[in-house]
């Protein structure tokens, strides 16, 4: 056993209101520079929808992530031998058109336009070339457009849905959608790291944050095509790739990343999970239907004395072990099995998990009205307007079982709380539904508290990073204090 700690994340989709505050917080801190205008380390997608970059989940065309070939794991894009002939022209690189061309407006025209019969307009100008452009796409271009034939129906996740399910998803006036906020998953088997010919990408040993060493990146662009979530971006100005850094300067000072901190719906949770790094390759190589269970078993119980002993042996700090024991992410992922990894079939073992969203119940199916008073207490889960198959494609590696389990439990907790606070459900029914959802009363209380009444300290359990000890090991802290500079002193400019 090789215990490693990871700052892991959980997004509670049932609470997301799609306000994009996270995106703006991130944008203002990290990607407001030249060359990064089009990048959104954090973005919020409407599902069903095509997403950003357009149809990023369609790995038949983007070729991101890993694939099993003859029982072995290999990169779908350009790993090892295949990078050499392809390094000049990366065959799987998305271009700016797959994202959008950033623009601003010619506001001066509002002041300088000669007098005329019409109001002057501020024409859009490309932020790349400075020329006037026709805007064809932009950030959140398909926001809330799930019912549209261009966006909703082109979502790669509707693969395998029956015609009835499709109809139910897109029926005018009854269409349904939910929000899907995305940041880098800081995977435990990152395809971007594995693909980098320069070895510029790395996973930090202490907290598992995946970063790009800007001084080692040579702009070979492999990470951009290898990441199946398209969360590494190519800076067209500096010629280097950039990605979400989980606001590590904030994490190291005990603060939650900007997108977490600013989240209006308080959907975001952050905490340590301990996992067995020796099992990464084995788990990533499991058959598709076993991937979720495999990843869950790779995540270790921080209360288990043997795990604690092994963690200490691996140099994991006491405070980190303690943080792992209090981790909200651990509870949602492993104890309650409510949170699921996105598209784990890409085999990167993402360390960001999602609680799947509940959705309204369908009122008609196959032309007939659905009876709302079924004996089956969970009929509204299987009859929810977002078909289970769709959620299964997103969060269940194509299988619906784990998603259904998470939704049933959520529903059971709701009924149980309803029995207590509203009283229109009798406690006997509530307890029966809890039992059927594999949830005890205590567990329901805990889920309820951590979902609805959580404070900042409940949501973000960040261990100290103990940088001072790391310095002590190599250098006298006082000397360090006098000698350490300010990091980069030159701006990230293109070329020499």
């Amino acid at each position: 056993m090789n215990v490693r700690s990871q700052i892991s994340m959980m997004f509670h989709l049932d609470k997301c209101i799609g306000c994009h505050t996270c995106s703006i917080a991130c944008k203002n801190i990290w990607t407001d520079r030249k060359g990064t205008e089009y990048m959104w380390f954090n973005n919020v997608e409407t599902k069903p929808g095509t997403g950003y970059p357009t149809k990023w989940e369609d790995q038949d065309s983007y070729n991101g992530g890993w694939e099993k070939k003859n029982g072995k794991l290999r990169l779908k894009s350009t790993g090892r031998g295949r990078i050499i002939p392809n390094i000049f022209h990366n065959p799987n690189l998305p271009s700016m058109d797959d994202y959008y061309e950033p623009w601003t407006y010619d506001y001066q025209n509002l002041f300088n336009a000669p007098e005329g019969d019409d109001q002057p307009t501020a024409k859009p100008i490309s932020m790349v070339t400075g020329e006037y452009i026709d805007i064809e796409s932009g950030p959140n271009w398909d926001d809330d457009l799930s019912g549209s034939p261009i966006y909703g129906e082109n979502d790669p996740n509707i693969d395998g849905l029956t015609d009835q399910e499709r109809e139910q998803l897109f029926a005018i006036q009854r269409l349904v959608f939910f929000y899907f906020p995305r940041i880098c998953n800081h995977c435990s088997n990152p395809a971007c790291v594995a693909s980098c010919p320069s070895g510029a990408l790395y996973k930090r040993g202490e907290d598992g944050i995946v970063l790009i060493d800007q001084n080692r990146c040579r702009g070979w662009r492999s990470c951009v095509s290898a990441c199946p979530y398209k969360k590494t971006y190519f800076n067209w100005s500096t010629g280097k790739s950039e990605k979400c850094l989980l606001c590590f300067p904030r994490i190291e000072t005990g603060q939650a990343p900007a997108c977490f901190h600013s989240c209006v719906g308080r959907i975001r949770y952050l905490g340590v999970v301990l996992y067995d790094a020796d099992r990464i390759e084995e788990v990533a190589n499991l058959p598709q239907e076993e991937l979720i269970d495999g990843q869950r078993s790779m995540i270790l119980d921080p209360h288990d004395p043997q795990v604690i002993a092994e963690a200490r042996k691996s140099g994991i700090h006491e405070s980190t072990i303690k943080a792992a024991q209090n981790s909200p992410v651990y509870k949602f992922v492993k104890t309650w099995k409510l949170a699921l990894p996105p598209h784990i079939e890409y085999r990167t073992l993402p360390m960001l998990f999602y609680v799947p969203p509940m959705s309204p119940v369908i009122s008609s199916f196959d032309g007939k009205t659905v009876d709302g008073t079924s004996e089956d207490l969970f009929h509204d889960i299987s009859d929810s307007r977002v078909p289970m198959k769709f959620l299964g494609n997103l969060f269940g590696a194509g299988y619906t079982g784990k998603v259904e389990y998470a939704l049933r439990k959520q529903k059971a907790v709701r009924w149980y709380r309803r029995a207590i606070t509203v009283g229109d459900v009798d406690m006997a029914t509530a307890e029966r539904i809890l039992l059927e959802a594999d949830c005890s009363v205590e567990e329901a209380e805990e889920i309820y508290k951590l979902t609805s009444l959580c404070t900042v300290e409940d949501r973000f359990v960040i261990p100290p990073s103990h940088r001072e000890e790391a310095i002590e090991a190599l250098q006298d802290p006082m000397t360090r204090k006098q000698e350490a500079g300010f990091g980069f002193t030159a701006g990230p400019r293109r070329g020499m």
Partner: protein
Amino acid sequence: MSSPFSNLEQLLYGILPYVAMFVFFLVTIIRYRVHTFSYSSLSSQFLENQFHFWGVVPFHYGIIVILTGHLVAFLIPSQLLAWNGVPWRLYVLELSALIFAFLTLTGLVNLMVRRKKYSKILEVTTKTDWLLLFLLLLQVSAGIYVAITYRWGSSWFATSMSPYLWSLVKLNPDISYVIGMPWMVKLHIINAFVIIGFFPFTRLVHVLVVPNPYLWRKTQVVRWYRDRQISRSSV
């Protein structure tokens, strides 16, 4: 003692190579140490993904083969002459070299056209890029002209150019090999040294950081901030 060569000839063939190599090593090393960030391929594929292929791929495949050919002729001239001793082998070598030279030229011209044609690419093009492209164009064109006009270059390179280059390496430049050459060959030589001297100031430095360790390194890279051995014992 009077030299049989003019000062200009001495300068171009006897001194320029050393200046070029000196600048090459000095600037690449300083640049790597002071401004590592600037070592990048500066790819523009992200901004234009289609025509890119027709420029970059023929150029790189062409130039790599051609430069390897020059290197082989420089390193093992006698073996090369032995190979060329049989006519059909000479023809095969010369013809394939010419094909790759034209591949290089095609790629280079496409790259220049691409830089001019697409406004997004023009935006990330500097004066240095243009100067470099024109120097390369001059070099490749001169090379092709020489290959076609003065036949069996692979053989006379081995007998005349290789000794000249070796004399440079041995710090005892014998420029008599060069003096009798046609002016186009001279241009090719001088321009080669100009490009070597200009190299460290351009995007060409990406050649020096080609990712060879990739094939041998572990798949995943993990960096530890803390020394794990020390922190283990302190716990």
